[in-house]
């Protein structure tokens, strides 16, 4: 089976849901017209990234009675859609979330579990952290979603892998930083290293979308990319510019790569669990030794 993914690397209007929604609907239409089965938007695609005190004012609920999600769910009748937004739960906590929409339903909502609150980042001040990492079934197989800092940590992709994900959908609003004499920023180089590493280590597909544009002095570097289970680059979007990049995933590659390299078959999950229990049973150290 083949899955054509459209990587939507967009700029956003900071805090203007309506304008961002219109851009989503237009790109979903374009992705459909170009033959995509799935379109993936970047982190906080419906709101913009550095929201600070705008956070409560732009919160949504991924349900058909929500004025932002109603047209998105309707659009998902034609092709599957992944969007990212500020989610408000029933107790009025705010999350950075991503929703997988398919045939009028939200199949899964992932709430960002790692909120960077260091350096230029201040997410922990404004958002609650998600508390689950789960794969889920889609018409194209089992998928896992992570948002930016989630996949800077090694464990969430590992959990998704063990939970059955063969396609990883990663979304970022990654501020470009680390200018040197090299042709790409350090942040871009680092992310592309680990995307390739995850695809290789987990013999899975890794798809990444990233914002473009500016918010005050922050630039977002774009360069959406997809890697196959061999760790090879399947396609990538341009740096710094808006683009809708279509990439075809040949899902049969999973069979071929895992026949050659049975890393999943040989993974010693019981050993991992036993050793994790031992390491973490020492309550004086909550990050292990």
């Amino acid at each position, binding site marked *: 089976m083949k899955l054509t993914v459209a990587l939507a690397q967009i700029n956003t209007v*900071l805090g203007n849901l309506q304008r961002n929604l219109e851009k989503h609907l237009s790109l979903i239409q374009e992705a459909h017209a170009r033959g995509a089965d799935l379109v993936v938007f970047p982190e906080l695609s419906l709101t913009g990234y550095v929201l600070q*005190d705008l956070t409560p004012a732009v919160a949504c609920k991924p349900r058909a009675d929500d004025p932002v999600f109603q047209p998105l769910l309707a659009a998902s009748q034609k092709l599957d859609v992944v969007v990212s937004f500020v989610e408000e739960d029933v107790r009025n906590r705010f999350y950075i979330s991503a929703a997988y929409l398919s045939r009028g339903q939200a199949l899964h909502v992932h709430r960002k579990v790692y909120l960077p609150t260091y350096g230029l980042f201040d997410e922990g001040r404004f958002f609650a952290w998600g508390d689950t990492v789960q794969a889920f079934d889609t018409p194209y197989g089992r998928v896992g979603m992570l948002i930016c800092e989630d996949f800077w940590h090694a464990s969430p992709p590992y959990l998704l892998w063990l939970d059955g994900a063969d396609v990883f959908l990663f979304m970022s609003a990654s501020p470009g930083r680390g*200018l040197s004499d090299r042709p790409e920023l350090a942040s871009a180089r680092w992310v592309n290293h680990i995307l390739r590493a995850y695809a290789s280590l987990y013999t899975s597909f890794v798809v990444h979308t990233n914002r473009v544009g500016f918010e005050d*002095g922050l*630039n977002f570097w774009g360069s959406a990319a997809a890697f196959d289970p061999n760790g090879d680059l399947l396609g990538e979007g341009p740096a*710094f510019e808006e683009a809708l990049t279509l990439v075809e995933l040949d899902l049969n590659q999973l069979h071929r790569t895992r026949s050659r390299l049975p890393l999943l078959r040989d993974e010693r999950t019981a050993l991992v669990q036993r050793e994790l229990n031992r390491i973490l049973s020492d309550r004086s150290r909550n990050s292990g030794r």
Partner: protein
Amino acid sequence: MNPAPDLSINTDLARRILTGFICSEITRMGFSRAVINLSGGIDSALSCFLTAEALGPENVLAIRLPYRTSSPESLEHAQMVIEATGVRSLTVEITPMVDPLIERFPEMDALRKGNIMARARMIVLYDQSAAFQGLAVGTGNKTEILLGYTTLYGDSACAINPLGDLYKTQVRQLARAVGVPAVIIEKPPSADLWVGQTDEGELGYTYAEVDRLLYLMVDERYTPEECIEAGFAPGFVRAVVERVRRNQFKRVLPPVAKLSHRTIGYDFLYLRDWGT
């Protein structure tokens, strides 16, 4: 540890990000034009080249603001930038604005006079910003911002600052790459506030030296002791650390005394780009 960190940058990448920044941050505020004070020095020349590339030269007004003691060479160098970029230009002599105030206080030292000139130039810049309907593009680099080698509400005043994360050494590299005339890049940097003034003479060290130290301290998070171990003279390190600390006030908005539950600067938090 590396006693001579490499500050070189990929100029294509820097140019792309900075022109994108200028274009985005001016147009999203509802403007399409910019104004720049062009001193004849390297920083404002680079800002002018980048802004002309970002907005088109017809949308940029470069202003030359000589005082009667300013070097004629500065005016000529500014003119070279105007001709090379094709931007619009205006020359406003600040002497008649500045001299009555200076004459009122005969004891005034060179520092006060220099600050008055820098602030007079700011007044003209912001007046032309309104007249030309363009935002003021800044020219301050990372070295001078860190050292506080700038006049508050004078040359530091601007709407956006494309050069503020580049050390002077990197400004030189980028200026060369975008085509700033060599004579401007190679002359000793000077605020040109009095005859014979040079930045490096006034600071007491060269930009090449202090940029390497600042890079280790700020970008690479070296402690002062680690900078000394890396080969910098202890007195130099201490003087620079103290200068950076003492000038923090120039890098922040004036603190508001907190009284309410929600106070500007503490817990009323929005980007400038709010809603755009």
